[in-house]
């Protein structure tokens, strides 16, 4: 039976398709990830996806909600992907499972499910893991071509599920600190910025491998903007804010503060700008609000990265700005048609 009320037509668009397109936009980045760090990330993504779907189903049943329409909306899968991409690929299987299950159950469903969660679920999952299991969260793989030993898929699976490495291989031999962490440590050792940047771990822009992945995320982001899945507001102002903040520090003291480019292409800045901060549910709705939110998140990311104790700042920056969203929305309401007279007299006469 056709609809009873106008409009009788609707744009052929739905939540599931939007989420699917976002996941599609992640694929170039994932492909490069596999190229540089081996197939372990695919295992993480698969693990996270299965956990997310199972948790989503269980929570929907517990909440007496229909399972089919919600499980098909792809939002749980996207959360799983983003979380899996944020944690080290060689993390033990239970780390992925715990993080994803917490993200879906507590930060999404306990707040009312799709559309009602104030915090980005993937970032909540990440925050829980980095606070609870800091050691496991630092086992980042050495990029392709840098390490002396490279693990096969079977070796990686063995480590993820059984925690055993091939004989004669130590964990240190296959993992290393991230480019952001290395920079921090080396600066503490009073190395100069030039010396640090000449280390083999660094490439042209930032870390070897990770910079290429960041570029791929950037390309995915352009795809999202071109297809109007997201708007330019958050990515531009987030990256802009990082650029300006990093630029000021770099200009004042280039020996101790890395270039804005380095910060753009290190860590999760790119995936954060286009895929994490742009989560519609947890970001502001007004155009001006998006700018404020993104600028704040960029500034916080830089501060936490450079002066904080965590390897990257994006998760906490996102969560801190998520808290501010209702406030930002309330104070950035755009002017309504017919109420734009600066004197405000005509428009508000009613």
């Amino acid at each position: 039976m056709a609809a009873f009320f106008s409009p009788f037509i609707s744009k052929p668009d739905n939540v599931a398709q939007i989420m699917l397109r976002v996941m599609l936009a992640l694929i170039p980045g994932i492909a490069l990830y596999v190229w540089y760090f081996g197939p372990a990330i695919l295992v993480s993504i698969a693990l996270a996806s299965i956990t997310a779907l199972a948790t989503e189903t269980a929570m929907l049943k517990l909440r007496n909600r229909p399972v089919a329409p919600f499980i098909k909306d792809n939002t749980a899968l996207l959360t799983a992907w983003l979380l899996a991409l944020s944690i080290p690929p060689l993390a033990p299987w239970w780390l992925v499972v715990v993080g994803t299950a917490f993200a879906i159950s507590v930060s999404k469903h306990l707040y009312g499910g799709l559309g009602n969660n104030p915090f980005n679920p993937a970032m909540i999952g990440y925050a829980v893991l980095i606070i609870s299991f800091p050691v496991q969260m630092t086992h980042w793989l050495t990029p392709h071509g840098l390490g002396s030993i490279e693990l096969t898929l079977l070796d990686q699976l063995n480590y993820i599920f059984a925690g055993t490495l091939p004989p004669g291989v130590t964990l240190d031999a296959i993992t290393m600190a991230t480019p952001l962490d290395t920079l921090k440590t080396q600066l503490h050792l009073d190395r100069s910025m030039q010396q640090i940047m000449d280390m083999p771990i660094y490439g042209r822009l930032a870390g070897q491998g990770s910079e290429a992945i960041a570029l791929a995320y950037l390309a995915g982001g352009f795809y999202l903007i071109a297809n109007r899945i997201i708007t330019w507001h958050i990515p531009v102002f987030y990256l802009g804010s990082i650029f300006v903040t990093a630029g000021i520090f770099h200009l004042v003291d280039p020996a101790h503060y890395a270039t804005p480019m380095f910060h753009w292409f290190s860590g999760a800045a790119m995936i954060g700008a286009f895929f994490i901060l742009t989560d519609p549910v947890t970001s502001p709705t007004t155009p001006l609000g998006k700018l404020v939110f993104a600028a704040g998140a960029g500034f916080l990311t830089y501060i936490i990265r450079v002066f904080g104790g965590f390897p990257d700042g994006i998760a906490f920056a996102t969560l801190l700005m998520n808290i501010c969203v209702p406030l930002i929305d309330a104070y950035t309401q755009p002017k309504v048609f017919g109420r734009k007279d600066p004197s405000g007299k005509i428009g508000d006469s009613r």
Partner: protein
Amino acid sequence: MRKLFKFHGGVHPPTNKTQSNDKPIAPVALPSKLVIPLHQHVGNCAKPAVEVGQHVFKGQIIGTPEGRLSSAVHASTSGTIAAIDMQQVAHPSGLPDLCITLIPDLKDEWIPREQRDWRAMSHTELRHLLRDAGVVGLGGAVFPSDMKLYSSQHKITTLVLNAAECEPWITCDDLLMRERAADILQGAEVMRELLYANEILIGIEDNKPEAIAAMRAAVVAGKHERIEVVAVPTLYPGGGAKQLIRVLTGIEVAAGVRSTDMGVQCFNVGTAYGAWRAIAHGEPLLSRIVTVTGNVGKPQNFEVPFGMPIDELVAQAGLLPDTTGYIMGGPMMGFRLPSTQVGVIKATNCIIAMSDALFPPAPPALPCIRCTRCAEACPADLQPQELYWFSKAKNFGKAQEYHLFDCIECGACSYVCPSHIPLVQYFQFAKSEIHMREHDKQAADRARERHDYREYRIEREKQEKAERLAAKEKAALAAKPVEPPVVATNPDAAPENTAQMKIQAAIDHAREQAAAVKPKNTENLSAEQLAEIAEIEARRARIREIAKSDVEPPKE
């Protein structure tokens, strides 16, 4: 090239206009009956001016305007009035309204028509003529046109003719302009004169190149001055009056203000055409162009007499069997007709036959994910996702704070919503709830006032009565100075005493009355009747005696 302006948002739904705009306007065969509602316009319902059984000519007034804001209703053809009663009308509510049923005699005989030179007529005469000709806004709002053709302080500089026709499927204005451009322009000239306006801008969406060309040619051919036909970008809802005014002039009509206060008046092209036919040819508004499209074999525009039942109209366009319903208006803002029996009215610009293939049902709604596609599409710069939140939570105060009443219900937000939330319905619900509450509050306020007044009145009457009595007492006392000394020396006893006297008097009076209403059938009786009564009484006494002795044994 005129500089055009933009309004915020807008959507590009599939236009679906080519189905019906490739054929000329066709006449319709007169139906077996016409059901003509008397309330086809904004304002007071017209008053029936005919009687059942009366013969009427085409164009004869069958409903006279009532009050200032009203419009006349006419017989769309000649025939006989069959009924004046409540019938279902083309309104989303499905509620019945007063209608006149006319059975055509198929002669189509006109009343005498007078051709007049409008330049020789006064403005008042012209406005009266339009009112009596039933000319109302044919863009859908059906506001009496005479009421809009005032210019109290000659403030209006621009007359905008709305021919944007932004709703998908509808092509009635398109065809009207292609075929009758000269008359439209003549009508616009009259309107300009009545408004003391300077320029006329005709806004047509650029997906109607034939109409634009026809109108431009007519401007040249008719040697019209200061009339510009402007092609505006195709963007729904570019045909909203405020949106079109914005695009053409850059003026943003402020909330709660009429466009005329900002120097612009806006009419639909069909209204200009109707006004011209009424003024120059003496033809009242009896028919209009209606697009019949959708699930029909031959989608086309028809010149349809008002009152023509929908089912007879769609039959002439070749209705297809799997039709599930009819939309009156466009798919974005139209509504489903409650019945196929209702008659075409002045607001009927389009009838779309629905089928599940053409209008598939929307999938079930998911929660809002705050993606703000609605806010990006909103032509009123509203934040529909916030309004939805407040409406759903029945937080109506907050909804008003976020300017709920600036929503024009264009449906752009619902159209783009990836969660398929029927946003417009939420807003309509919230608006009607707020109206309801305001109405209830007013009613409660009135009731409270009435109650308070009643209390006050009762109290006042009590007081007045007491005062009157006291005055009477005084007067009585003054008149009778010789009183028993006890009373005279004890003033407190006096009222008590008089009260007792009054009670006694009342008791006496009651007794007298009771005596007066004694059973009347015991009076004036004949001797036999008296004898009979005596006999009956004696019998009763005996029975009583017997009963007594039976129940209570005689005491020894």
